[in-house]
C-alpha cells in the first residue's frame, strides 16, 4: 500500500467518525510497521484537519454562532469554541494549517509590525 492509499484510508476512517472493526483488523494484520506508522500519522493529521478551533474574546450570542456555523455549513468538521480574552475583540479561526484572525489584537500587532518595518 502506497502513501496516497494510506492517506485515503486515514481520511475515510475519520470521515466515518470512527474506525470500523474491519478496518482495524485490516490495519493491524496487513500493514507493515512502517505502513502502520504512516497510517497513524495521516490519521492524526486528518483528525486535526477535521477540527476547527474558533476563539473569540467574549461569549458569542446566538446570532453570531449561527453566522459562524454558516461559514462551515456542509463541511464535515467539528467546531471547537473557546474564549480568548487577549484577542480584545473579534475572532480567531484555526483549521488545518491555517490561522484566520480578525481581531483587535491582530490589528494592533499588524500595525506594530508595519511600524517596526518602517523603523
Amino acid at each position, binding site marked *: 500500500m502506497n502513501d496516497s492509499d494510506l492517506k485515503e484510508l486515514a481520511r475515510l476512517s475519520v470521515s466515518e467518525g470512527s474506525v470500523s472493526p474491519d478496518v482495524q483488523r485490516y490495519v493491524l494484520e496487513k500493514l507493515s510497521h512502517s505502513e502502520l506508522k504512516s497510517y497513524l500519522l495521516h490519521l492524526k493529521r486528518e483528525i486535526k484537519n477535521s477540527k476547527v478551533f474558533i476563539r473569540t*474574546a467574549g461569549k458569542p450570542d446566538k446570532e453570531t454562532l449561527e*453566522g459562524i456555523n454558516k461559514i462551515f455549513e456542509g463541511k464535515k468538521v467539528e467546531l471547537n469554541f473557546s474564549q480568548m480574552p487577549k484577542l*480584545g475583540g473579534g475572532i480567531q479561526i484555526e483549521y488545518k494549517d491555517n490561522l484566520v484572525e480578525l481581531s483587535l489584537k491582530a490589528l494592533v500587532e499588524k500595525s506594530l509590525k508595519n511600524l517596526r518595518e518602517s*523603523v
Partner: protein
Amino acid sequence: MEFLKELGLEKYLLIAQIVNFLILFFILKALFYKPLKKVLDERKERIIKGIADAEAARELRERTAKEKDGIIRTARAEMLAMIEDSRKAAEEIKNKIVDDAKLESEQMVNDAKAQAQEEMKKMEKEIKKMSLDISQKIIQNVIPALLDEPEKDIVLKRAVKKLEEKNIYE
C-alpha cells in the same frame, strides 16, 4: 824723492813692492777674482731670486688671501643660499605637514561626525524598537480591557460577517 826718504822708504824697494803688488794683483785676479765674482754673482742671483721668490710668495700669499676671502665669501653666500633654501624647504615641509594635519583632522572630524550620526541613527532605531516593544507589551495587557462586552460583540459580528463573505473554508 825726499819725502820717500822722510817716510823711510826705499825707491827700489817701493818699485819692487809695487811690482810685487801688481804681480800679486794679477795672480789674485787670475786665480781668485773670477771664481769669487762668480760666487758673488751666483749669490747675487740667489738673493735676487730669493727676493723674487719672496715677492712671488708674497703675491701668491696675497692672491691666496684674496682667493681665500673670495672662497669664504662665495662659501658664505652659498651657505646663506643653502640656509635660505633649507629654510624655504623646511617652511614648505612645515606648511605641508600643517596642511596634511589639517586635512587629516578635518577628515577625522568628518568621520567622527558621520560615525556619531550613524550611532545616533542606530540609537534612534533601537529606541524606536524598544518603545515599540514596550508599546506592544502595554497594548497586550490593555487589549483585553479595551472594549466592553457590547463593543466586543459588535466587533465579533463584523468579523463573522466578513468571514461569511469571504468563504474562508474549502
